[in-house]
């Protein structure tokens, strides 16, 4: 247990090396899905986040507004606490509060998790296949993409990432980190725009 704690404190961020790889042999549906997602551009959606962990008696429930832009990354504006905005992009994790932006210090595997999440959001199969076994499921307009780590040690505590959706809309993101350890983000009320205006980018992204 303590060895895991030793990994806890980070002073600088690290970036996962996600090397490019060959496109995996997925059916045309998945490639079309990716293209559709790209075409739809940026999205704003309401989110409900459920965190489970043995230390919690009950799952923590948080909500707010999610913004995703294929170029600028993911932004989660929480309504709880200090109304923090968490920005996850290629550079790392940034927390924006009324006191200004600050880089968030998290353990290595969490940093990696964020990079995986970004790759999953843009359905970058080639990158994902480098670290995961991709298990696709489709049923009519609904789909589910489950990612199982190909090498357990390589991604630390991440045991799986699942993206679910309907047509070209992502509705659920689940991060599985073991027994009673998970984060589920449910999305609703999607609003698509080609790109975010500059003031939104400045407020909600890096």
């Amino acid at each position, binding site marked *: 247990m303590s060895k895991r704690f030793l990994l806890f*404190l980070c002073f600088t961020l690290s970036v996962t090396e996600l090397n490019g790889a060959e496109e995996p042999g997925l059916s045309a549906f998945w490639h079309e899905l990716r293209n559709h997602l790209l075409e739809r551009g940026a999205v704003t959606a309401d989110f409900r986040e459920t965190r489970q962990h043995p230390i919690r008696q009950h799952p923590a429930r948080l909500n707010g507004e999610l913004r995703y832009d294929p170029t600028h990354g993911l932004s989660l504006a929480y309504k709880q606490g200090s109304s*923090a905005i968490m920005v996850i992009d290629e550079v790392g994790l940034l927390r924006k509060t009324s006191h200004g932006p600050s*880089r968030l210090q998290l353990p290595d595997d969490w940093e990696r998790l964020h990079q995986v999440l970004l790759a999953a959001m843009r359905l970058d199969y080639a990158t994902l296949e480098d670290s995961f076994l991709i298990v696709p499921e489709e049923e009519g307009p609904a789909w589910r993409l489950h990612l199982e780590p190909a090498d357990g040690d390589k991604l630390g505590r991440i045991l799986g990432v699942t993206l679910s959706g309907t047509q070209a809309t992502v509705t659920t993101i689940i991060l599985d980190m073991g027994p009673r350890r998970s984060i589920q983000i449910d999305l609703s009320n999607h609003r698509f725009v080609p790109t975010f205006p500059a003031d939104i980018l400045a407020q909600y992204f890096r």
Partner: protein
Amino acid sequence: MIGTRGHFILLLLAFAAAIRLSSLDWSSFLQLDVSEHFISNRAASPTQLAISHLRDEQARYIFFRSPNNASVAEQLTRSPRITQASASVFDRERVSKTLYEHRFELFFPHWLEEHSEGSPSAEGLARSAVSELEAFLDSPQSLGFEDLLFADPLLLLPRFMDSLQSLPTMGLDVGWARIEDSPFHSSLAQQVVRDIESLLAHETSGTQWTGVVKFAEESSRVIRNEVGLLNTVSLLLLSLLAVLLLRSPLRVLHLLVPVVFSITLALASCSLIFDSVHILALILGSILAGVTIDFGIHLMLHCSGERKRVVMGALVLACVTSATGFAVLIFSSNPVIRQVGVLVSTGLVVALACALLYRPLVEHQGNLRFADKWDRSLFRIAPSRAWAVALVLISAATALVGVSWSDDVRILDIKHSQLKQESAQFTSGDSSPNVFILGGKELLALLAQLEASDKSSWTKQFTNERNANLTKEQQSVLDEFPKALRRELNNRGYKEALFSPFFADFEGYSKAIAEQGGMVLARAKLAELAKALDGPAGFLLGERGGIAWVGFFDSVAAEETGALALSVEPELRNGLEPVRRQLLEIGAILVTVMLSVVCILFRRRSWTSIAFSSMLGLLMAFSLVAWFGEVNVFHLTGLLLGLCLSLDYSIFYVICRDRGLPYPYSIRFSALTTLVAFSVLLFSSIEAVRSLGITVILSIVLTHLFLEWERNRHERGLA
């Protein structure tokens, strides 16, 4: 003339100087840090001592970023000149381990103090702790911390991590290495850069690196090239001029003998007096070429027949005046100015001695090409001196009123645009954060001092001198606290057993604090943390040789605590102010002494002529410089040099005039050679050198115009 014996003495001296110069370790003899001697080195207070140490350390670090930092770090450690290398700015594992293992000693007393307001009870503390834990778990920022909380339900580490948000981060994936010696004090810079480049050549492409050593190496290379180029171009131009106008290449070679001789002997003398010579003194010293060639010119063009004694006397007088002027600089408290004083005054005396002893200069007499045109008068009119004096005094007065001084040491520096761009890529988002250092004898005391400033700082969660020892009341509460916390956790529905890592560690801490006392414990653990903060991270918190320091980024806290900026920038901005004051004083003394000597040695009619042409030229040169820009110490140095040269020319002219000899056109030829030598300085990449060049050029040109004015008045019988 001493003849063969004289030549023998010259040869002997040249041989001794050559041996001395060849035996020098030039890498340590040349002082390449341009700010050295211009930045205050006084280190009276502990903060100044700490800053002095950290600045020295700062110069030794290099930073790199590569797709594979670990491999680069491993490669770098193969260089014997690199003592340490690491793949990341912090030794994360070591620091994390230290913080985690000693979290109670490092943070608990502050937590207890913060939660002990009023009359604290173990139950009250437990209730606060669990409430805060619950609130934290329900907040977005609990992400990623959950596993840790089994061992840290008091949130000691998350709270500390939160306070770290105030720290600017250097950027992603930055590794570092430390070089053994300071890059300024040896040829190390060049060797280290060569080593690193060769080691990194084996690495994958995309490896970037920066460090003071890279700047030092470039400065050294640029300055070395510049000194070489300026001297070569200067000598080539002078030679070309001499070949064109003196007709014979052999005469040119003879003229160069006093020049080479004076530079060699002046440098050798400097090496005997000073351990090292500042690069700037060397650059200024290189102007000797332009000054000393004059002696040979005067002798070669006029030293025959009835003029012989007059010319020699004038040369000795002029040289004594100039050398005295530069010798005054020896009394400066600034080593660089002292070095210039020794270098130039020795060079002038040696050049004169050489010119007088070296017979070919007298034996190869001859006229200049276009001799009939050289002594033509420039003006047809010669108004009263009063007009000139009034004009110059009004100009000087307006210039003095509006003068703007620039005391920035960076005018001595090379621009390094490319390197600065490369270096900027290592500070992501945070543009050169200003680090403040607070020094003292003990870390605990410094932390208390910082906490008292009540400003947000990354150190605010630490145990400090004030709260390290628990009060009796706190001690008794502490004994009851674990039980109370277990009860509270159970009451709120948490499985108390999950928190066993916390209770086990807390028990150990309680025993240790009872046996050793909080102060001793905290002191020991802070020392461990300081050791773990290896490399550049050590700037944040450290101890060495009885001096401790804490680094932070809050300028208000810095003002309140008396901390000083680690950056030398504020000192660089005004670093030359004391030198300027000193030069102004020296200048005033120099002018007074020189004019007094002239007054004593010459009749009234003569000294007014000398003072008129030399002083008005200098005042006008100063006015022009002040009108069109900021005046710096190198303009003032240029004026001092201009004063010496102007006096030389004026004295030479007046002595010839008073003896009834025709106008000595060697003055014009000398001025031309001096102008050529100084014009080369205008192409220097160092602002200071350019300032010197332009001032001397203006001084010489204007002195000649006033000299011409004087000559015209004399020829018209008006003087």
